[in-house]
């Protein structure tokens, strides 16, 4: 009887009363997605006022395609950041997948479907290679993936000698160039992938354990979870998503360029971190990854439309990452203060 009363009391107070009291700015800090969404809306307004070509169907289609590609790249990075690591070789793995797709279609004459499967397997294998080095040899992910970044990039240039594969059948480019419902197929793929990410981190043991690992490796280990296996798997998944991004890139471009992926590192970190993936690990948001990708694409796209000196582009992206990290830091500090 006594216990029952107690329970009721606990259930009733489950409404997030601690969030009701805090002010608007503070709740923005606590809900990263809200802040990014507002930023996205502001950017949309600014760019549509500043440039008449921004809100055209062509530009929207193009932006949506880019957002999709960036989101896959961001997912590849976020999947390992959330576990407390990082993957500097996302772009190189993407490049490997691009080259594999091109090589097996153009040189070997395989049907595209087979080439795609091989490319995805290459991504899985590269991710597994990263994961094994990190968990079995015990090298931290920064150093391990810095090394594999060069290893994979070297393989790309060794195989291609720098030349692209250009004989990609038209049928294969439909996925990357056409769409349905006013939005590209790529965009809908991304919706599916983000849906999977949401499901994984909310309803799958693996997702829960990966989050836990990012929060506290030690606590997760003493709870009976094989932490090394979780980290290994997260790198395998990271490799897979980088490879998917690579395959879709080929389909979009209609050719397999060996240089693909060289700018993915900055994209992946920028989108993931702006999207609320804490650099210290332990947090991820599917909506945030989407919004983060939108912001990066809008800024790149908007800068072109506004006629800004595009050679400074990397500087702008770097500044945006810096801004995101600062916000991330403020958020963490705020959490600490709220915790005491």
């Amino acid at each position: 009887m006594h216990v029952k009363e107690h329970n009721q009391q606990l259930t009733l107070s489950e409404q997030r009363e601690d969030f009701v009291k805090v002010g608007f700015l503070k709740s923005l800090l606590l809900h990263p997605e809200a802040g990014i969404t507002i930023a996205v809306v502001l950017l949309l307004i600014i760019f549509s006022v500043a440039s008449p070509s921004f809100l055209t169907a062509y530009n929207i289609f193009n932006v949506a395609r880019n957002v999709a590609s960036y989101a896959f790249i961001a997912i590849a990075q976020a999947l390992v950041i959330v576990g407390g690591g990082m993957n500097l070789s996302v772009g190189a793995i993407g490049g490997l997948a691009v080259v594999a797709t091109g090589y097996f279609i153009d040189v070997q004459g395989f049907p595209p479907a087979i080439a795609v499967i091989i490319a995805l397997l290459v991504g899985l294998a590269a991710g597994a290679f990263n994961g094994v080095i990190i968990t079995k040899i015990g090298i931290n992910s920064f150093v391990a993936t810095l090394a594999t970044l060069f290893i994979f990039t070297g393989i790309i240039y060794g195989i291609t000698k720098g030349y692209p594969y250009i004989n990609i059948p038209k049928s294969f480019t439909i996925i990357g160039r056409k769409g349905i419902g006013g939005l590209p197929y790529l965009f809908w793929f991304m919706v599916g992938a983000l849906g999977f990410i949401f499901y994984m981190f909310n309803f799958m043991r693996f997702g829960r354990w990966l989050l836990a690992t990012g929060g506290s490796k030690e606590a997760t280990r003493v709870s009976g979870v094989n932490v090394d296996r979780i980290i290994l798997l997260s790198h395998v998944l990271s490799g897979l998503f980088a490879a998917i991004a690579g395959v879709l890139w080929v389909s979009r471009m209609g050719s397999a360029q060996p240089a693909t992926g060289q700018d993915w590192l900055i994209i992946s970190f920028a989108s993931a971190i702006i999207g609320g993936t804490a650099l210290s690990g332990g947090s991820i948001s599917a909506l945030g990854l989407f919004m983060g990708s939108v912001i990066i694409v809008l800024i790149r796209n908007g800068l072109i439309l506004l006629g800004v000196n595009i050679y400074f582009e990397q500087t702008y992206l770097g500044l945006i990452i810096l801004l995101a990290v600062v916000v991330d830091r403020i958020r963490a500090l705020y959490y600490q203060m709220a915790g005491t």
Partner: protein
Amino acid sequence: MRKNNYTLEMKNIYKSFGGIHALIDVSLELRHGEILGLVGDNAAGKSSLMKILTGAYQANRGRIFFEGREVHITNPRVSRQIGIEMVYQDFELCPNLDVPANLFLGREITGNFLKALKNRQMESEAVEILGRLKIGIKNSKIKANRLSGGQQQAVAIGKAVSFNPKVVIMDEPTASLAVVEIEKVLDLILRFKEQDISIILVTHRLDDIFKVSDRIFVLKHGRRVDVKETSQTNKDEIIKLMF
């Protein structure tokens, strides 16, 4: 019927690290539902003895009996299967997960469909566990890093207890806590007696030991010095035994 009064018996445990004798023929008996305080100076062998129970170390010699049956605790998993849980000094929680996720970490409840996590069921069971232990956390959806130290330790203890253990080893559970929170954790420990859980409380804080324990076990230089009924001894005597 159980063969004797003991939940756990360690007999003539010997452990050495190279040439250092960490434990020399230590025998320890833990009664049903009792709280046994384990004290000793630094390097007296307290943590070695407990690590043998949790499977982190293996004894060189000696036998362990659990409810009268001999057991071989070869690794931490075996220890947990037998029914021994450990609570650490620094509340082993994931700061980024909410209370139910922490309580069920590693043994989440899943449904038949796609083995999806049953978050609601875990949440209501978490509320039930917290209620049963009278752990005062109003909002169970709150993340662990927003709980106070005492609340975090309470959740960590709740986590250990929700495995339905027979023995809980607590290693300095109050060392990182504020004074007001220590009382609450001690109250919590006392409540386990009602649930037929035996507890080994390892701590430097003799005050804590005298508040909650039934007996006090003193280790010195790897040897069992004495075991006293708490009601029939005092701090001075225990300190003399320790040094």
